[in-house]
């Protein structure tokens, strides 16, 4: 029987191998034909004219991810500190399931909410079309909150109580103790939460498509439309053929590499956490 269990354990190895083989076998020829530097640094994406520059999408993904972090990281960490150290038990019993719900809401619902609430709000109050970097950043910021809160809270709770109590005994207030003693002690865990949020923001597809405008150009300002790497694949894979298809698969290879880096970072940071 051991062999059966071992075989099931090997399924994930097989899956990752097949995924890599299929992406590389279909992506590498396209990368070779377009040229890696043309692909990564080209600023023009015109599949109909055979021009495949991914830079606008790489920049787009980085912009909206950075924007999401600006929104999500301060809110997430402050909320996590509150939940871990200040929240009364009764309130916690309500707020904690709220965080879980935030994590469980599907991206299409976030996207629809962005489309009917955030897009019109940005359009009337700040101008532009409403679809763009700012809207996508606000929405993604909201979407990465549960990842950041959840992982940060666990990291903060893993810090031994004596740190907090020692600081109180030295005369520091609860707030100062939480922020200048407990928070620094939990930093690798909190960083893992932030990196997880980065992964979620870079990988998000449908919600971003619904609010970002999707023009394949480097955005001029935060109200301009933007297209991410994920959106690039989703928008065009339905009808792409030949080299165009290959270029989209190359886009996925770039994303896959991003995802791998995020994953390794999270694993590395978690190992440094006190357990």
């Amino acid at each position, binding site marked *: 029987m051991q062999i059966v269990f071992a075989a099931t354990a090997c399924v994930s190895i097989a899956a990752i191998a097949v995924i890599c083989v299929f*992406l590389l076998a279909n992506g590498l020829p396209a990368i070779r034909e377009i040229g890696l530097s043309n692909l990564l640094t080209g600023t023009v994406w015109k599949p109909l004219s055979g021009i495949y520059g991914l830079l606008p999408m790489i920049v787009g993904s980085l912009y909206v991810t950075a924007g999401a972090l600006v929104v999500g990281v301060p809110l997430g960490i402050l909320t996590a500190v509150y939940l871990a150290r200040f929240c009364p038990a009764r309130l916690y019993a309500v707020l904690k399931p709220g965080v879980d719900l935030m994590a469980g809401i599907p991206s299409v619902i976030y996207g629809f909410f962005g489309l009917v609430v955030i897009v019109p709000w940005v359009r009337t109050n700040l101008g532009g079309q409403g679809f763009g970097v700012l809207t996508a950043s606000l929405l993604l910021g909201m979407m990465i909150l549960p990842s950041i809160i959840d992982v940060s809270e666990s990291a903060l709770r893993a810090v031994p109580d004596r740190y907090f109590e020692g600081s109180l005994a030295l005369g520091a207030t609860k707030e100062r103790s939480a922020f200048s003693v407990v928070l620094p002690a939990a930093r690798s865990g909190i960083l893992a939460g932030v990196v997880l949020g980065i992964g979620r923001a870079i990988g998000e597809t449908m919600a971003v498509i619904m609010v970002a405008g999707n023009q394949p150009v480097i955005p001029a300002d935060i109200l301009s439309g933007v297209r991410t790497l994920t959106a690039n694949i989703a928008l065009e894979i339905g009808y792409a053929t030949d080299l165009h298809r290959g270029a989209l698969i190359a886009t996925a290879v770039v994303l896959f590499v991003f995802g791998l880096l995020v994953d390794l970072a999270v694993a590395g940071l978690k190992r440094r956490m006190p357990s």
Partner: protein
Amino acid sequence: MRGRRIDVASLLLRTAMLLAVVITFAGLLFLVAHIMSHGLRYLKPGLFNWTYDSDNLSMMPAIINTLEMVVLSLLLAGPVGVGAAVYLNEYAKPGNRLVPIVRLTAETLSGIPSIVYGLFGALFFVKGLGWRLSMASGVGTLAIMILPLIMRTTEEALKSVPDDYRQGSYGLGAGKLRTVFSIVLPAAMPGVMAGIILAIGRIVGESAALIFTAGTVAQAGAGLGSPARTLAVHLYVLSNEGLHINETYATAVVLLIVVLLINALSDAIGRMLMRRSSHG
């Protein structure tokens, strides 16, 4: 005067913290309230007709497709994921060289964005295996996606089963396999269930990985070989068409309620686990 001086920094920190909490949860509350208040009154019987047409915009076929996909993906990924976790936690000896590789690949799988799964599914199942845009292609893609989730949660559940249980079982003369199936797995069941519910939530909410594997055809009941859209994909298509905003809100309400139910269930199981661990 008694007590401390007011510390300005502490006051600022406390204010910032409370503000962050209010913004965070107000956002969630606003999202839920907005969708409920705009959608509930448009939940008409026509939306639950057995067949879809462009007049009734029924979501029933999409709901049926979602259920079928949940069941089929779990049938594939459940036994494999649980089996893998049993191997990692019960069979593999310390120093086993397979274990770190399996863990690394499972970690990598869980970090892949869903659109990359969608693209892979389109290349592998849809084209490579010739399954075309179909429920089968969608189920295959979903099964790979939820596998690492089930593996991880099951392994955690197995780890929390005390070693005394295993020793007791061996002491009574049971073999390894019987111990795993009659003692360890039943004891770990709530944890395994929690993982399965997480996986259900992931499937119900998935869209990017399904559009290019299972397609966006709105009918149900045409079998494994036909395209089929789930409720989340249905919501995306409706929202994208932008023609029927009220029905789109109503569909979002149903999807949101399903997610709320799944969350409540997983919460209940989580509490059960907590109670048990504090007793034992």
